[in-house]
Structure formats: C-alpha cells, structure tokens
C-alpha cells in the first residue's frame, strides 16, 4: 500500500506494509511557486462542487464550458441581486452600495459599461504605459537596494497602489495612503469579512467624491460625476459604486498576480532568461500566468428561475459560482493545464472572467504584468526566496492556494 503525505513543501510517499512502516522515499519537491489545482477530481467526476458561505450555499461550476455558458446567460444567472451577494464570501452583511457596472444586468449594464469603458481603456495609450514603466522601474530599483524584501507589502502592494493613481488620474501621493491601509482593507485576516475595515475605504471614497463635486479636476471621480446616464448625470451613489469596484476589484487580484509571477520567475530562472531572449512572447506569458494563477478564484450569480447546471438542479434564489480557477485548468481545453507554457498560443482562459461582466480593469492589469515582466527581464539577474507563508483559501471542500501572505526575497541585479 502506498500512502501519500503532503505538506506545502514536500510530497512524500511512504510504503506501508502490514507490520512495518518503511520510511520514506522522497519523491517530489513541490515548488514554492507551484499552484496545485484542488478542483481536478471533482471537475472530472461530476463537474460541480458545493460550498457553504454564511448560510447562503453555493454550487460551484468547475468546467470551462459550463462556466462560460453560465456567465453568458445573465437572464437565468443574474448579477443584479442584493449588493454583495454575488461575491464569495458574500458581502451582503457589510455593504449596501451596489458596485457598478459589476452588479447590474443587461441592458442597463451596457449603459453603465459604455460610460466607464473608454476610461478603463486608457492603459492602451503610450503615455500611460510610459508612466507605468517609470513607476515599475523605480520600484524594482528600490528593491534592488535592499538585502531582503517582503514582496507582498514591500513590492506588490506598492506597485498596485501607485499604478492605481494612473488609472484614477489622481496625484501620486494618494498611493501612500492606500499603501498604509495594508493588504487587508476589505477583509480581516480570518475568513469573516470586516465591516469596519471596509468603512475606511467607503468613507475615503465619499470624501473624494464630495471633494470632486466641489472642485472638479480631471480625475476619475470628477469625470464620472460629469458623465451622462439616461439623460442625467450619474449620482454620487452610482459614482461610489464604480469607485468601490475599482478599488476592491483590483487590489488582492493584482497583488497576487504580481507576487506569484515574481515567485515563479525566482524558481524558474530559465523563464526569466527566455523573456530576455524572446521579448515577443511577453504578452502570451502574461495571459498564461493569468490563466495559471487565476487571481480571482470564482464569482457568483443568483439563479432567477428553477433550472439545471451541469445536470444538477439549481433552485431560484440560490447561488451558483463561476469557478474561473477550475475552468482555467480544464484539460478538455488546455493541454498540460498544470504547467506554465510561456508561449501558449491559443489560450481561451477565463482569468478575467467571461462575457458581459469580463474584468473592467483587465487592460490596466495586463499592462502592469507586461511591463513588470519586461522590467524584471531587463534588471534582474536572479532572485532568492528566503522564507514564505502561503495564502490558502478555504472553500469548504476545497483548499486553494491563491498566493502568499508573505514572501521574503532577495533580488540580485543583472550584471551585463
């Protein structure tokens, strides 16, 4: 009989015979930047999982095809339920503000989306990319001066916060405040959601909207307040809904994507070398990392009528989730799904969601990741991972590694 023992670092196989336990053949070393797929067996066996979440259970859709089909069917699987309900863990008890356009269904969704979309496409402009490249180069230069850096707070949080000043078109100094909030503004350390911490953000946004209403600038608050929706201006509550989405949607996700990408390159120096030698694959590598890391595990929908998902009954007013992380490892779609194939050519991943509600911040996030990889290839010779603590999401029956709580690293410059 073969018994398997795993912890975060090692996978060990022990041969157990009737009377004796023969120790230990050390079979495989699990890399620090490896992100196992906890959904594989369930996805292949039945296609859906179940989890409880604050007594509002969720049927998790695990297959690529079901996830995409369900994401597209907004009539039966709605986003415009009670604010916070489609988020997992549910935020129903900690907020009343509807996030826009995220928690609105078509056709109204489209009206809102078309207002905000041009603003969120600005990262395609060369001048935006130049500013972002300068920010990222500065951060990498900073960490190169240190003996060791805790990458989550000392690099990823800073990078995310500073880059957000570009997306919002607000003064750079605002990022200092956002950095001081730490990585857990919206969520406490444990599983439970922390209303007090969320209030810091909401109070801040309210104050910014009031400020912009009084003396408009060319920042995002002012532009939104001046936007036309169905023949009137957006209300302050609507502007707040867009701003909360912008702050919350792009925080943990970007921080995890940045941290995980750096951990991966630290452990795979040949990949960093490849980015140096073949810079033309960088865009594909970004997409592949988004697929592999899937920074957002899942997003919920509320069922509007009794129906079936994956041959499983889904009752009206219950929740399903679109498990992006599982869909992105579906072997029916992706060859070698558990490997990072840096130049994967066809990659219909759902790491930025799918259909009407696909990620509004994706253009910004893609530029961050692309410029980050370019900058690392240009400036970094090698990295060492000193110590780390993994961030494991507890999804009831599934435990998913989504990133790191902390990871200390040493950055070594490229010497030419």
């Amino acid at each position: 009989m073969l018994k398997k023992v795993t912890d975060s670092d090692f996978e060990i196989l022990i041969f157990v015979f009737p009377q004796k336990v023969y120790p230990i053949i050390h079979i495989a070393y699990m890399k620090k930047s490896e992100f196992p797929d906890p959904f594989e067996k369930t996805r292949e066996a039945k296609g859906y999982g179940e989890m409880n979440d604050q007594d509002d259970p969720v049927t998790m859709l695990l297959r690529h095809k079901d996830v995409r089909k369900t994401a597209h069917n907004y009539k039966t699987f709605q986003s415009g339920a009670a604010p916070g309900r489609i988020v997992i863990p549910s935020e129903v008890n900690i907020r009343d503000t509807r996030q826009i356009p995220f928690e609105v269904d078509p056709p109204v969704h489209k009206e809102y989306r078309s207002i905000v979309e041009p603003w969120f496409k600005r990262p395609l402009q060369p001048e935006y990319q130049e500013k972002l490249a300068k920010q990222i180069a500065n951060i990498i230069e900073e960490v190169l001066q240190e003996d060791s850096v805790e990458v989550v707070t000392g690099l990823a949080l800073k990078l995310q916060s500073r880059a957000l000043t570009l997306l919002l078109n607000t003064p750079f100094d605002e990022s200092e405040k956002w950095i001081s909030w730490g990585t857990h503004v919206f969520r406490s350390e444990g599983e439970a959601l922390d209303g007090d911490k969320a209030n810091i953000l909401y109070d801040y946004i309210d104050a910014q909207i009031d400020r912009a209403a009084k003396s408009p600038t060319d920042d995002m608050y002012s532009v939104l307040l001046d936007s036309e929706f169905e023949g009137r201006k957006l209300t302050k509550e609507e502007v707040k809904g867009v701003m909360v989405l912008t702050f919350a949607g792009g925080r943990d996700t970007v921080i995890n994507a940045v941290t995980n990408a750096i951990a991966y390159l630290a452990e795979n120096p040949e990949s960093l070398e490849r980015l140096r030698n073949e810079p033309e694959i960088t865009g594909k590598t970004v997409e592949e990392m988004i697929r592999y890391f899937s920074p957002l595990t899942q997003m919920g929908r509320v069922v509007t009528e009794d129906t079936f998902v994956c041959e499983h009954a889904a009752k009206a007013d219950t929740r399903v989730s679109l498990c992006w992380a599982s869909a992105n490892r579906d072997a029916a779609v992706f060859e070698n799904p558990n490997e990072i194939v840096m130049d994967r050519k066809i990659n219909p991943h759902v790491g930025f969601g799918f259909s009407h509600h696909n990620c509004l911040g994706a253009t910004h996030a893609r530029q961050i990741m692309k410029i980050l990889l370019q900058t690392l290839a240009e400036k970094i010779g090698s990295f060492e991972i000193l110590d780390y603590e993994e961030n494991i999401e507890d999804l009831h029956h599934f435990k998913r590694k989504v990133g790191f709580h902390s990871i200390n690293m040493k950055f070594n410059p490229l010497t030419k």
Partner: protein
Amino acid sequence: MAKITFITNDEETITLEGTSGSVMALAVDNGVPGIDGDCGGVCSCATCHVHVAPEDMEKTGSASEIETDMLELDDNADEYSRLCCQIEITDAIDGVVLKVAK
C-alpha cells in the same frame, strides 16, 4: 506582402501592408480604431472582432471552434465574423476587406 483594408465604424477606410504576424497585430501597430487586441492574440478577449467581406471568406477561411465560442457572446457576430488575431498575414490574404465590428 499582403494589402489588407479595414473599414472602421466611422466608415473610414484604412489600407495597410504586412508580410507576417497576425492581422490583429498589424491593426494595433497602426492604431486601427476598434481593434484593441487586449490579450495579445491568444483568443481570450474578443477585442479584435472583424467581419470579413463575404467574397473574401475563401481567402481568410472561417472561424475555428475556439473563435466561434468567443464570438458567441457578441451580439454582432455572424457567419463572416473572425477574431483577426487568428488570421495570419500571408500572400494568400492579399486584398481582403475587413469591417471592424466595434
């Protein structure tokens, strides 16, 4: 060398020449409005949707299954729809006319 003509939503006609790479990359490099190519050409974003002129379908071929799955979500999609990141530039597509969907 292939000449490729884009007709934008504003009815502007832009003719570009290319020798290799994808039609999406050619359009993005030359700033054709409505072709964003956000994902860089791996068929995950559907921001490079074009309608091929019916008489040119033979040259470009029709959409693959993965493209069709992506296009399904677009109300404007029809039998002439392609994601132009999946159209390679070769002499074979010289002269095609593509109407930008967005």
